């Protein structure tokens, strides 16, 4: 354990904090922006203001250090802060991206991006970090990026499970999906008392196999003896797999039955939450976990959040809710929005499918994106960031994988990739071990990075493509503008005022589900001026017989629009007013900003 200087929110405040730090992190974190800039001496490509490497996995402290560096580099746009603390006392870092010159944060639609709710699903944090970096480096280089940063706000939280992340990266990391709130997994009144153990001290939790001639149920594969395959029915093998490396720590006769934590932090959210026997790992009530509670407090206090993106890591999917079939389907108008975003996402993300969670993945009750869709009213996606097809990513190779005799088909493909492209880095050979309970055994198998996390050399493409999808999503958040205005005097001191109101982008100011659930403040259409409003209505037909849908509300100077303004739509409001002078009409949407127009009534 080292006591180290440790960053906390607020640019110039420092806090002493005790963290476990590896030698590797110590070596890297001494670099500063100026050191790195010195590497760049010319050439035609723009020089990065903050040259960061994107080919290694960062633990929680390193993430914080890089965010601090970014804030120092781009202080005009970036505010580095924290949503709160994890169970283990780690800050839930958040970076706010806002250009104050184009308006305060809460008056612009915001995109919330988070990752790593499952501790082992680490690479989303780097996508999040890359997103901040890319937006800032290219603000002055690419017009579309400048416009996006000027129009929108981003809240970016690289890891919402820093305890699990650090356990995965800095320790043996087996079973890092959970958070670290202690749970009695085996019902004996004790918590987390029998985890896996790194018995041989090599930093890897391996598999244990035992040689039991004629009594086993697995055998080494003829294709590659490293593969342990089940024996065919009716035969016996010489080996049994005894599970993960560990001992019976609490002497109850079971091995590894009560590990660290033991729940699913992505089942502790407030929509369709179900008790543990229906949804394993949900804990006792929604937002019981300190991390979920802190994130939700942030979401509920930022009404401008219109888009949400969460990053997971396995399968290659662009997922949306509902998480369970019994929740029914989303309203049709919401599905249209999701489909357009998701289908374009499929075009941006090769190997990814756009899927409904319960139908395409599996049933999830109380998941994060269900809550942000149903309870926050934000259009929400969850991406599964790595697809096994990407290991052999050409049609030719994938055709070859169909051939059972090919060295890249079936389980053998994993060994081939590791042997030839990672130089065997991810595999631990079986080796004898004298186990205190099992006697003579062998231990070996894959290391933790294998399978769900991209090889480092393939990571940056994953970061960029997924970022591009979230930026597209952010760009399609509602954006309210006022269009043409007209004033027509009808005589007798009465005038007809018409104003076009437009939402330029795909997503409505209030989704149909948010309107049903009453979780977003209605849009407000207000009129300020020294006039009396006789009637107000929506213009439905500029040329036909029933020109206006009358608005039957008591306060016509403060019209409530509960289901918001649809995407890519212009509506025209008409007021009949008595009086004269300037009249200002303002459309205010929590998730779409506000827009005003002023007309002169004669």
């Amino acid at each position, binding site marked *: 354990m080292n006591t180290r200087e440790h960053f906390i929110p607020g640019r110039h405040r420092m806090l002493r904090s005790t963290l476990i730090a590896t030698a590797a992190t110590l070596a890297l974190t001494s670099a500063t922006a100026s050191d790195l800039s010195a590497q760049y001496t010319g050439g035609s490509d723009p020089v990065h203001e903050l040259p960061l490497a994107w080919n290694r996995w960062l633990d929680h402290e390193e993430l914080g250090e890089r965010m601090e560096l970014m804030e120092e580099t781009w202080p005009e746009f970036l505010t580095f802060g924290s949503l709160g603390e994890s169970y283990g006392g780690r800050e839930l870092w958040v970076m706010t991206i806002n250009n104050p010159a184009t308006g305060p944060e809460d008056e612009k639609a915001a995109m919330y991006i988070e990752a790593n709710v499952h501790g082992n699903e680490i690479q989303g944090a780097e996508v999040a970090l890359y997103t901040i970096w890319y937006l800032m480096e290219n603000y002055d280089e690419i017009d579309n990026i400048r416009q996006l940063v000027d129009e929108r706000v981003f809240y970016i939280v690289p890891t919402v499970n820093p305890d699990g992340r650090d356990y995965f990266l800095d320790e043996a990391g087996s079973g890092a999906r959970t958070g670290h709130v202690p749970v009695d997994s085996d*019902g*004996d*009144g004790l918590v987390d008392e029998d985890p896996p153990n790194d018995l041989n001290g090599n930093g890897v939790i391996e598999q244990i196999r035992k040689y039991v001639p004629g009594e086993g149920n697995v055998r080494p594969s003829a294709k590659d003896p490293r593969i342990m395959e089940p024996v065919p029915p009716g035969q016996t093998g010489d080996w049994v797999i005894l599970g993960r490396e560990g001992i*019976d720590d609490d*002497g*109850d*006769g079971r091995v590894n039955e009560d590990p660290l934590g033991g729940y699913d932090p992505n089942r502790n959210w*407030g929509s369709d*939450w179900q*008790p*543990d*026997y*229906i949804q394993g790992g949900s804990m006792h*009530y*929604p*937002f*019981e976990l300190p991390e979920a509670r802190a994130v*939700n407090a942030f979401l509920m206090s930022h009404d401008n959040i219109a888009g949400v993106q969460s990053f997971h890591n396995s399968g290659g999917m662009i997922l949306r809710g509902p998480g369970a*079939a*019994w929740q029914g389907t989303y309203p*049709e108008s919401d599905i249209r929005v999701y*489909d357009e975003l998701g*289908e374009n996402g499929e075009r941006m993300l090769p190997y990814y*499918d*756009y*899927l*409904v969670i*319960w*139908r*395409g993945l599996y*049933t999830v009750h109380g998941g994060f994106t269900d*809550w942000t869709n149903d*309870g926050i009213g934000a259009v929400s996606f969850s991406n599964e960031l790595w697809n096994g097809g990407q290991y052999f990513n050409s049609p030719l190779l994938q055709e070859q994988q169909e051939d059972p005799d090919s060295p890249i088909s079936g389980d053998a493909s994993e060994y081939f990739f590791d042997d030839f492209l990672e130089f065997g880095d991810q595999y631990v050979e079986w080796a004898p071990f004298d186990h205190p*309970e099992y006697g003579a055994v062998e231990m070996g198998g894959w290391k933790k990075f294998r399978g769900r996390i991209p090889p480092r050399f393939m990571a940056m493409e994953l970061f960029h493509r997924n970022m591009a999808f979230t930026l597209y999503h952010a760009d399609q958040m509602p954006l309210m503008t006022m269009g043409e205005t007209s004033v027509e005097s009808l005589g007798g001191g009465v005038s007809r005022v018409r104003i076009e109101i437009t939402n330029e982008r795909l997503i409505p100011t209030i989704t149909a589900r948010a309107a*049903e*659930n*009453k*979780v977003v*403040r*209605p849009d*407000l259409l207000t009129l300020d001026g020294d006039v009396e409003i006789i009637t107000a209505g*929506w*213009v*439905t037909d*500029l040329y036909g017989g029933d020109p206006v*849908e009358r608005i039957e*509300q*008591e*306060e016509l100077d403060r*019209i*409530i*629009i*509960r*289901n918001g303004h*649809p995407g*890519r*739509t*212009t*509506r*025209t409001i008409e007021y009949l007013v008595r009086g004269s002078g300037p009249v200002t009409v303002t459309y205010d949407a929590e998730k779409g900003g506000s827009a005003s127009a002023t007309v002169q009534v004669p």
Partner: protein
Amino acid sequence: MPNRICGHLAAAVAVMALSFPASGHAQASPYLNFEDLSSELNDLADASDVVELRSLGQSHEGRDIWLLEVGDPDGAPLDERPGVLVVANLEGDHLVGSTLALEMVRYLSDNVASSDVSRALQSQVIYIIPRLNPDGAEAMFADVRSGHRRNLRPQDDDNDGRVDEDGPEDLNGDGLITLMRVPDPAGDYTTDPDDPRVMKLADAAVGEAGEYSLHWEGMDDDGDGFINEDGPGGVDLNRNFQHAYPYWEVDAGPFMVSEPASRALMDFVIANENIGAILTFGLSDNLVTPPDSDGELADPVMLAMDGFADAPYEEIFETGMFGNVATFEYYEQRFRGTQPGRDNEPGSGRRPAVTINEDDLEYYSAVSDAYKEITGIEHVPVHREPEGAFFQYGYFQYGVPSFTTPGWGVAEPQTGEDAPEVDGDAAILASLEAAGSQPFISWSAYEHPVLGRVEIGGFRPGANVNPPPAAVAELGRTHGQFLVRLADMLPDVQIAATDVTSHGGGIYTVEATIVNEGYFPTSTRHGVVSESVDPTIVQIGVPPADLVSGDDKTSRVERLEGSGSRDSFLWVIRGEPGQEVQIRVRAQKGGSAVETVRLP
């Protein structure tokens, strides 16, 4: 402190208004504001060795949520004993609940010398949370009182961007918020011929015409066309828990367990897994009328007139919902109804239980019988449908026998041929008056500045959920007795017998028999089904390598019935003469025990 005096005076005035002693006895009201309740609880804790008082947290307005732990400090640590949890006054207007909770504590400390009380306090622990909603309860002592059920979280009830902007007003200055009936040929309501004070829905099919519309007393403060649609508060704490939670309903909170008080309660029960039974005082009932043979609760009975006054609010959320009024749409609408790739089966998922498991019904009936026998309560005047209620969480997710009662009763309505045909609010009114309450404020004329000539009157706030003060002392005593009976029913697991046999060569058979001396099983059947109650563990204290055969080193019993039910275990072990072997039993809801045997 001047505030303190003011508070007392206001409380005294309010309680006199609430006081409805039929006999006219001069007596202190049993209904206590926060300060008086706190002082009573402190006095009880100070005077007793078996009562500890602490705060579980604070309400929105900063009032403590008190917890009393009652148990004899000699003996096993309190949190290792089987426990009963009592929670009261979740609904702000249900003041009698907190008084009964207070009187239970008093009963236990006053009777600590009696054998049944001392047995309970030596082998069990009783947790009492007398007032989960102190802010809502305090509103019942304000200068102007409505039947304030929710807490005081500031909340935009009508989702119009303004918070708590249109509460009721005491127009006629009687200190009470009641109803306004407005003569209105378009209204839906008429007087009930059974009792003309009571309003009923006019039934056009039998020739009745509506004569009145009904509203809560007050003005349309924000000018939105609705009267009193967004008053102070809040969240109904007994609709804020996880079973059958009424999602997105305005008084249920933004999400389950959203409130400081509900969270404090949840964190307490999670941390105290020794709680083996729950009793709440609230506005539903499963004690006077236990679940039926299908495991379902009786249909609710509520004041219809309150519902009539709430009915106009249903239109709020229709106002401002607009159809397709676009003058131009920029893109062609598309709809993709199916997904490519995988396609899982819909509807195959397991659903949570919503009825009491049939194996648990007998226990509910037995507890109900005991409750009625001890308290004499045979009928409750009103009770509501539990949705998100804490007692439902207690059974359906925490897995223990869990009960609720309004805590008082009225005479059972007559049935049979001679019985008067009175139903609805008229029947409730009659039963309340027969019980000695003065539950109704007669209609009196009032010139409303907007609505014109109206009449103000209706049920007195709180009168349909609280008994007349004179009845409370006896109810406190009998509920104390019932609590002791309930504690006595908790599972109580012991090691009944052990035996050792030597087979020579260092091989021994060790046998143990456990027994549940309590009445309840170690888990409800639903506790097993929902995996919310740990199996009872029976463990032999030898290294796993010394186990030769027999039962698992750590054996698990899902559910051991009570009333002396037994289960036996046998291990064949390797050991040495003279070696001591420990046998341990742990029942999450039934205590733990250890026996040591010596190998011969």
